[in-house]
């Protein structure tokens, strides 16, 4: 058995009004993948920040490589050999790959950055990560999400980290990219580097994890469970106190007439000649990898991007190209992929976020009606079981799942007839997921059409009536969800990347 590199004992961290960590125990060994499980708000993020030197614990001990430590700042933690890859990658978009990798520790001579050394060492690290194709002088902003994550990892390696903390690394990755991530993790652990891996996806934990520590309400509710053999029911019950899994509510009702008709829609480099329909009361799911053009397609239907050719017809009328306002007036709603940057006003109260598209309707002669807005928003908060209920709280104080409820709830007000959902459950904990599934099904039962994009194939299959599979910007398959299995869909989705001739 390998040695313990990191040990936390009774760690407590308090913020005004909330005890985020309330006695956490954690033991990580060299060369293992230690998974951290817990619902949103269980304290995972705070724990990571304690390890990364962002927060100082109020009580308890952190033992790193045999000696007690207290990191004054993130640089100190990094110097000690703990690197953190955050969910929202902390890269500088306007710097190059190499500059990001060596940010803050640039190889220099006489005070001048030695660019050639930085570039060559970056190439070495990228090679080691299996991504020699990433150009070291390219600006980071030009890279896809997966590429940015590789750069983050390269930065961790360049620091010669002994422990790498990964906060939901797979959330921004498509299926085949996750496989590559796992390969890299296995290589790292083979070299004796410990990995703390955080994910909401149990199947990933089964595949990559060695041991699991479960957090619940700021406390450790289970330590050192074997990742592969612990029954899912046990893991879920440790997280929630209830035993639920991914529960899809039963399908009810039958789809009505055609609501949305997309014909020959194209945008260069994004998607090509896409045609499909969505009927009233129908849930249509789009399966595809990141970069398959699915999010771009959704945004184009919504008018947020202008198509180069093709039409979007809604309830028998063509929507003007590239006008979100017209789409919203017609009855479309979008819950975009990036909640925080695309959907929410974080500092504004929850009710103003919920009424962001409808406050004009409640207004009288241009004067807003805050009382009515709060009442309407409260109705939605009740229907969606928003926690906490107070709709005057800033939206930024809510957990990911509850933020998503706010975004979806926005479209429950007013006359939304077609709801576009882009990764509605990303970063949403198990309990809130089940509630969101219920909401989506309820909407369909009431005759609202739903077009859903998700990276999680079981979610698409479990929720949708009909499934569209996208690969490299093309619709390659349309079928009722009942006729497809997870393996079928994965095969279709990934065929392009595995065997290009099979299409």
């Amino acid at each position, binding site marked *: 058995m390998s040695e313990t590199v990191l040990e936390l004992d009774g760690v407590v961290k308090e913020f005004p009004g909330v005890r985020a960590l309330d006695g956490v125990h954690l033991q990580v060994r060299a060369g293992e993948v230690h998974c951290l499980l817990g619902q949103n708000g269980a304290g995972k993020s705070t724990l990571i920040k304690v390890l990364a030197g962002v927060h100082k614990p109020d009580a308890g001990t952190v033992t790193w490589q045999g000696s007690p430590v207290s990191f004054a700042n993130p640089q100190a933690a990094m110097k000690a050999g703990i690197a953190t890859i955050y969910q929202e990658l902390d890269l500088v978009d306007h710097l190059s790959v190499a500059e990001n990798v060596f940010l803050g520790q640039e190889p220099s001579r006489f005070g001048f950055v030695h660019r050639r050394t930085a570039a060559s060492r970056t190439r070495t690290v990228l090679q080691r990560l299996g991504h020699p194709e990433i150009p070291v002088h390219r600006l980071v902003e030009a890279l896809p999400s997966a590429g940015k994550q590789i750069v983050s990892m390269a930065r961790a390696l360049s620091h010669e980290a002994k422990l790498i903390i990964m906060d939901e690394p797979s959330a921004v990755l498509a299926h085949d990219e996750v496989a590559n991530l796992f390969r890299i993790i296995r290589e790292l652990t083979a070299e004796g580097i410990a990995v703390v891996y955080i994910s909401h996806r149990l199947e990933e934990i089964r595949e990559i994890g060695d041991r699991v520590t479960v957090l619940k309400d700021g406390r450790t509710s289970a330590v050192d469970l074997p990742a592969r053999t612990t029954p899912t029911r046990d893991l879920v019950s440790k997280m929630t106190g209830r035993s639920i899994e991914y529960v899809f509510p039963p399908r009810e009702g039958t789809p009505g007439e055609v609501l949305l008709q997309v014909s020959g829609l194209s945008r260069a480099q994004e998607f090509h000649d896409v045609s499909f329909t969505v009927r009233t009361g129908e849930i249509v799911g789009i399966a595809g990898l990141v970069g398959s053009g699915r999010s771009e397609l959704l945004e184009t239907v919504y008018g947020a991007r202008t198509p180069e050719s093709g039409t979007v017809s809604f309830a028998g009328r063509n929507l003007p190209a590239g006008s979100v306002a017209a789409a919203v007036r017609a009855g479309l709603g979008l819950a975009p992929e990036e909640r925080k940057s695309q959907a929410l*006003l*974080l*500092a504004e109260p929850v009710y103003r976020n919920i009424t962001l598209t409808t406050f004009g309707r409640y207004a009288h002669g241009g004067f807003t009606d805050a009382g009515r807005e709060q009442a309407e928003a409260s109705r939605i908060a009740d229907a969606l079981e928003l926690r906490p209920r107070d709709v005057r709280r*800033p939206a930024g104080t809510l957990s990911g799942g509850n933020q998503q409820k706010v975004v979806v709830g926005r479209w429950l007000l007013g006359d939304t007839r077609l709801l576009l959902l882009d990764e509605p459950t990303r970063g949403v904990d198990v309990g809130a997921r089940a509630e969101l599934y219920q909401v989506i099904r309820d909407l369909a039962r009431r005759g609202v059409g739903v077009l859903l994009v998700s990276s999680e194939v079981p979610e698409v299959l479990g929720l949708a009536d009909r499934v569209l599979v996208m690969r490299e910007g093309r619709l390659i398959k349309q079928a009722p969800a009942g006729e497809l299995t997870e393996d079928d869909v994965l095969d279709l989705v990934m065929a392009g990347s595995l065997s290009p001739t099979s299409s």
Partner: protein
Amino acid sequence: MTAQTSVVERGGWWRTIPTESLWRNLGLVGVLVVLFVIGAIIRPDLYGDSDWVVNNMLVILQQAAAIGVVTVGVTFVIIGGGIDLSVGALIALAGVWSTTLATQSYGAGGMIFAAIAVGTIAGALNGLLIAYGRLVPFIATLAMLVAARGLAAQISGKQTQVSGNQFINGIATTRVAGIPMLVIILAVAAALGWVLLNRTTFGRRTVAIGSNAEAARLAGINVRRHTLLLYALSGLCCGIGAIMLTSLATSAQAAAAELYELDAIAAAIIGGTLLSGGRGTIVGSMFGVIVFSAITNLFAIANLPTEVQNMVKGGIIVLAVLIQQIRFRSLTALFRKP
């Protein structure tokens, strides 16, 4: 009923956010008190006379009037996520345009119309460049600053244009119930601004766009049109400010209202408006304007040079922003999900 309970749920720490601006305003009142006390120490002879004190306060407000109206517009632009560097130049342009002999021949109504129309149209041009031409607000309004001053100099031939209109000139000397007309105009503009920001859909859209323009756009708000309107509103305020300045000086010139843009932005900032948009108050901005005006007044009373005065103003801006950052940081720490 549950819907009811969630509306009237008891308060928690987040209740502190509305009072955040209250604390800041109290702080600015404190600064005013300190300035008053300093004045009283320096010139006990003047401050002993209560009539003089009341009158001096009105002078402070009167001096703040034109810049105050402009600051209302600038506050809207900043809350909406933009910046307007052209306000001083637009005042000069509107002032010069409305005091040409040709315009003056249309009488007071014509002059007021000209000033407001010129300001609004130039502001709308800013908005057009920014919203539809995708220019960065800083660049677009900087270009407008240079161009508008140039045009004002061209129109006036670099001469001071005297206003011969008794109505316009009389505005600055009129008092209603002892309160100068210019102060009343400022109060009305501030009140209208407050209502517009806090009680109308226009204000809600402004805050939404300043908080997160992409989210506002995807929620169906016409961000471009609203951005255009924000800069037009700022221009409109400049037009009103131009009339007020013309009335005070009984003349207009291309070099008028120099550096008003910086005073207006600084007043908004020390009043608590976030330069990144999404948050700010009209009341705070007005306090900011009055504090600056009070400093100018105090230096005049104490016979101190304007150089020192500008250094003090600079110091106050830095201090205000430092305090804002500390408070904001503690606030964001709370926002962050543990």
